[in-house]
């Protein structure tokens, strides 16, 4: 089959409705396809997946490839990556995009390897250049820089996309899409991984990605004990706590709290940033924060330069000061 201009999006529906990254990428793919031509296609692997097929069409997919089989009921890295590679080889899309969930970050490199093509991880932007190539923008190089990467020769062009990067299209019940249902290929290899147990353990609390107030802390908080005060402040403000990579590495807080590359993008009305210098891996996730208050002893820190209000002081002391102020002001 001849190579075409189609843009494919891997349908990552586990945890839907919470996980909306597939819808976000579909929206961007629709944008990109107006420049490149070609069809925006979603791929859905699993069992009894009609709901997701309908959702993807309502959110921009013009065509959906479906393999529905009881043996695909749970996510399997070996079977899913083999099938994605098989489908791409058969239909030859120009581009394949995958949400940077943990499963997405695992399946994309394996599919890229099987197809002998390149892959850019955790993109924060996707554009088309004058030559019609996909320009994949991703933070890189130890947190200091952003890189623009292309895949000049190999196909498909592949990227994983950080959740929260692109807004999804509104749900359109009237949208039409073609559904291609394919049988499970007979030569699909046996799964070498055996799933013993799988238990859905959703996080019950409000998600940091959706919080109106986010309180982020960096190493400038001083210690694990002092960092904990941010949770006291968050409880008072109905906020969520985020953290930088050094803090997560130091185990002051769990990986779930990581804001930035390999973590979460946030879009709060207010971001309170305590003791954060502002490495790009962190700040790249903050572009949708409406109002930023940063506290740092160093007035020249990047985080202070990008804040609406920059408080030059000890982060821990100001945190305690705000806790005290809110307790007084909220008292009736």
């Amino acid at each position, binding site marked *: 089959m001849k190579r075409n201009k189609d843009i494919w999006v891997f349908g990552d529906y*586990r*945890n839907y409705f919470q996980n909306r990254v597939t819808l976000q990428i579909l929206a961007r793919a629709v944008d990109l396809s107006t420049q490149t031509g070609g069809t925006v296609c979603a791929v859905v692997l699993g069992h009894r997946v009609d709901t997701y097929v309908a959702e993807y069409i309502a959110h921009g997919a013009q065509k959906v490839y479906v393999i529905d089989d009881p043996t695909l009921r749970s996510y399997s*890295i070996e079977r899913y990556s083999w099938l994605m590679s098989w489908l791409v080889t058969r239909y030859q899309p120009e581009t394949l995009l995958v949400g940077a969930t*943990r*499963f997405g*970050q*695992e399946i994309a*490199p*394996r599919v890229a*390897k*099987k197809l*002998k*093509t*390149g*892959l850019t*991880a955790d993109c924060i932007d996707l554009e088309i250049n004058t030559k019609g190539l996909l*320009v994949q923008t991703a933070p*890189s*190089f*130890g947190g*200091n*820089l*952003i*890189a*623009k*990467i292309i*895949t000049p020769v190999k196909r498909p062009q592949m990227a994983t996309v950080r959740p929260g990067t692109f807004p999804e299209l509104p749900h359109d019940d009237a949208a039409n899409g073609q559904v291609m249902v394919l049988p499970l290929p007979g030569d699909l290899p046996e799964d*070498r*991984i*055996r799933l*013993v*147990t799988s*238990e*859905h*353990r959703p996080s019950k609390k409000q998600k940091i990605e959706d919080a*109106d107030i986010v309180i982020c802390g960096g190493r400038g908080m001083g210690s694990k004990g002092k960092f904990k005060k941010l949770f006291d402040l968050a409880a008072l403000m109905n*906020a969520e706590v985020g953290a930088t990579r050094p803090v997560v*590495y130091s*185990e002051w807080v769990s*990986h779930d709290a990581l804001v930035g590359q390999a973590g979460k993008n946030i879009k709060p009305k*207010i971001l309170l940033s305590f003791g954060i210098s502002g490495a790009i*891996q962190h*700040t790249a996730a903050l572009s949708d924060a409406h*109002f*930023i208050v940063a506290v740092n002893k160093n007035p020249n820190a990047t985080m202070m*330069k*990008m*804040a*609406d*209000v*920059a*408080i*030059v002081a*000890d982060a821990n002391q*100001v945190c305690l000061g*705000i806790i005290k*102020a*809110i307790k*007084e*002001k909220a008292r009736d």
Partner: protein
Amino acid sequence: MVSELPWDSRTGTLKRDLAQGMMDPASRRALEAALQIKETQPAYICAITMGPAMAREILHQAMALGADEGVLLSDRRMAGADTFLTSHILARFIQKECQGEYLVMCGTQTSDSETAQVGPQLSEELNIPAITYAGHVEIKDRVVEVHRHVDEFFEILNMDLPGLVTIDLSAYKPRYLALEGVEKAFENPDIRHIDARQLGLDADFNALKDSPTRIMDVYSPTAQKENRVLKGAVKKVVDQLFDDYGKVISSAMGKDLKTHEHDEA
């Protein structure tokens, strides 16, 4: 901001020789997992890294912590490899050295580029099963059992050897390396150096040229905002914050806040 970017604009690669010779935190966790397995059963730990000559230091450190062997894959022709070729080169060595029941243990993602791609791609190259983001790894009767928590699912998975695991960043807190251990490590000259020819890479192999992705541009983004600076005693700046932005804050909180002391009564 860094004063000198570790970036070579001519070749489009990271100047890794400017980076410090320290083991990446993710790799330390993978080594820790290997050491803990070795504490429960007979095992031989080979620490492998690919990089410039100074990456040798990391292998000394690994041996001081308990690895039995250190191997450095280093060659000018390997420089500039992306994840696709890095996994290819690592696989070449592992295929030459390991037969039968081996387990490859990787960090989930390095702290410099954080792609998390090399582990999964290495398993493809080696054609062995892989389990990523492992929180706990055990080997029982030649079966690898892994516990992990991924995308809000807690899973227990099994696979036979040979296999590959990547260790989650939240698991296996690395042990402390005593100073005498460090000193002893550097007395040990026994690091094997393997080059492209020894790996049997083609004569015209050139990682920079052969990588499927190309970096077009790198930049250091700067944000533009009206930037109000508050200085002084903590009480003063906090009062000022609430005086001027109290309404913004209380509306986001969904709670009423008294704006001024004198508004009371």
